[in-house]
C-alpha cells in the first residue's frame, strides 16, 4: 500500500485567526480518507492546503514522502492532486466536453494555427464518462443543464481521466438528494477501486461511513480524533460528529425543561 499524502501537525493562521492546528492524517492509494466536521471546523482550510490554494505555515505536508509547499493549484495538479469543489467543480454555461478538458485542451496544428481538437475532445469525453459508467446523451450540452450529481460525476471523471493520484472531494454530496448522493458515492468508490487515494470531505457520517477507510474528525480547527474504520462504528462516529458529550448534556437539559410541567 503506497502512501500518497501525509500531513503531520499542520497548522494555518489567517492573521490572528488560527484556522487549523496540529492536524495529522494520511492518504493511501486505493483508500478513502474521510474528513468530517461541522461548519467552521477547518475542513476547507485543510483541503485548500492539500490542493495548493493556501500554504500551511506550520507542520509538514508530504507528497509521496517528499515535503512540499505548493504555490498554486496548478502545482498540486502537476503532482497528481486533483480537487473537485462542491460549487466550483464546473463552469455551468460551457459544454460538457469543454469543461472536461478545461485547462488541458487537446490541440492540433502548429504555431498560430494551433486549434482545439474538438472531435478528439468530444470522443474522449464520451469514452471517459462511459468508462466511469456515466452515460450522457450529448457532450455538447451545457453542464448547467445536468443535475448536481451528474456535475460532480463529470468533475470526478475528469480528475480520474487526467491521471490524478489523489482525488480531493469537497462536500460532494452536500447539496444532493438521497439518490443522487448515492450515485456520487458510487463513483467515489469506483475511483478508489482504480487505485486513487481519495480525500472525502463531508459533514454527513452516513455518507462517509460506507466508503471510507479512515476518519479524521475536526472541530474548531483542531483534530478531535483520527480513526481507522475498524476502530469505530457508525453510531459512535455520528455521536462524535454531533459533539458527543455536548449533545448528551443538551439532551439532559431538554428533558429537564420538559419534565417539570
Amino acid at each position, binding site marked *: 500500500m503506497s502512501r500518497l499524502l501525509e500531513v503531520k501537525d499542520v497548522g494555518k493562521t489567517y492573521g490572528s485567526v488560527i484556522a487549523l492546528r496540529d492536524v495529522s492524517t494520511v492518504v493511501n492509494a486505493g483508500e478513502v480518507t474521510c474528513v468530517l466536521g461541522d461548519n467552521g471546523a477547518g475542513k476547507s482550510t485543510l483541503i485548500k492546503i492539500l490542493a495548493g490554494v493556501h500554504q500551511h505555515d506550520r507542520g509538514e505536508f508530504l507528497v509521496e514522502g517528499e515535503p512540499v509547499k505548493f504555490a498554486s*493549484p496548478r502545482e498540486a*495538479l502537476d503532482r497528481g492532486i486533483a480537487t473537485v*469543489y462542491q460549487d466550483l467543480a464546473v463552469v*455551468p*454555461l460551457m459544454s460538457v466536453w469543454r469543461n472536461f478538458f478545461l485547462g488541458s*485542451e487537446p490541440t492540433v496544428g502548429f504555431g498560430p494555427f494551433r*486549434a482545439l481538437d474538438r472531435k478528439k475532445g468530444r470522443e474522449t469525453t464520451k469514452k471517459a464518462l462511459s468508462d466511469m459508467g456515466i452515460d450522457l446523451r450529448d457532450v455538447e450540452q451545457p453542464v448547467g443543464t445536468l443535475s*448536481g450529481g451528474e456535475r460532480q460525476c463529470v468533475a470526478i471523471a475528469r480528475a480520474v481521466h487526467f491521471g490524478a493520484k489523489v482525488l480531493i472531494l469537497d462536500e460532494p454530496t452536500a447539496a444532493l438528494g438521497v439518490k443522487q448522493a448515492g450515485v456520487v458515492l458510487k463513483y467515489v468508490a469506483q475511483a478508489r477501486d482504480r487505485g486513487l487515494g481519495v480525500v472525502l470531505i463531508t459533514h454527513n457520517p452516513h455518507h462517509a461511513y460506507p466508503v471510507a477507510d479512515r476518519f479524521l474528525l475536526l472541530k474548531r480547527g483542531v483534530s478531535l480524533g483520527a480513526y481507522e474504520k475498524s476502530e469505530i462504528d457508525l453510531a459512535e462516529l455520528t455521536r462524535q460528529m454531533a459533539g458527543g458529550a455536548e449533545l448528551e448534556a443538551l439532551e439532559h437539559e431538554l428533558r429537564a425543561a420538559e419534565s417539570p410541567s
Partner: protein
Amino acid sequence: MTTTTLDERIAKPRFLDRLVVRPEIGALLGAVVVFLFFTVVTDQFFSGSGVATWLDDASTLGIMAVAVSLLMIGGEFDLSAGVMTASTALVTATLATQAGWNVWLALFASLVFALAVGAFNGWLVMRTGLPSFIVTLGTFLALQGLNLGVTRLVTGTVQVSGMRSTDGYESAGFVFASTVDIGGTAFQISILWWIGFAVLAAWLLVRTRFGNWIFAVGGSAQSSRAVGVPVVRTKIMLFMTTALAAWLVGSINILRFASVQANQGIGLEFQYIIAAVIGGCLLTGGFGSAIGAAIGALIFGMARQGIVFARWDSDWFMLFLGVMLLSAVLVNNAFRRRAERVRR
C-alpha cells in the same frame, strides 16, 4: 443517472433547444428584419452606395464590438474603449505632425501606448479585484482629461490636423483608409478589417485553447483557476485585445479624416457594449459570440443609416436602439436561465 428517466424529461423541444444555444441567432433575425424593413421603405438602402454607407458605419463600431464581446465573455467591461480610439489617433497624429515622425513609426508608438493602457487596465482589475466597470471608468475619465489637456498643451487647440503632409501618409493610408471598388461603388477598407477581425475573433473564441479559457474565466473564474487556467493572464490579454482594436479604429479614423478632435470617442463605449449584448453576450460573462457582436454592429449601422435614408428624424434611432437592447437582454436572460437552471 439512468438515461431513460433523463430522456423522458428532456426529449421534446430538441430542435428549439439547439437553436437557442446559438447566441447570435437573435441578432441574425434582427438584422434580417431591419434589412428587409429599410429595403422596402427606402430606395437608396439596397443600392450600391447605400450598402457601402451602412457597412462603413458598422465597420469601425463592429471592430470594437467584436473585441468588447470577447472581453465581456471573459466577464469584464472596458468603459475606456471609446475614448481609447481617440487617444490612439491623437498619439499617432501628434507624433507625426508635431514631432515629425514617420507615420508608421507613430502608429507603432501609439500601438505600444494602447497595449500598455490595456495591460494596465487588466492588471489593475485583477490586482485589486475591483469591478472592471469602476476601474475602467477611472481610466476613461483619465484618458479623456489627457486627450484634451495634452492636445491643448501641444497644439494650443483641441484638435490635431495636418496628417496629409506627413511622411508615410500615403502607404499607411492605403492600408487603413483606402477604398475598394466593387461594381462601381467604393467600399471603405475598414469593412474588410471589420470582417477579418470578426472572423479571427470567432475562430479564436470557439476553436482555440485561449478561446476556451475566455469562456471559462467569464463563466466561473474560480473553477477555471482550480483546473489550472491562467485566469489573470487571460483577462489581461482580453483588455489588451480591446486596446488593440481601439488602436486599429483610431488608426483608421486618423488616416481617413487626417485630423482628430480631442473629445472624440466619448460615449461610444456604450455603443460597443450594446452591440455586443444585441449579439448575444451576457452582461455577467461566460456566454456570447464574436460574430453576434459583428452582427449587432451591423444592425446599428443599418438602422442609423436607414433612418437617414428614410428622412426620418434621427431621434427615432435612440428609440429603436432602446427597444433592440431591451429585447436582446430579455432573450439572453431567458437563455441563461435555461442553461444554468439547476436540477438536483
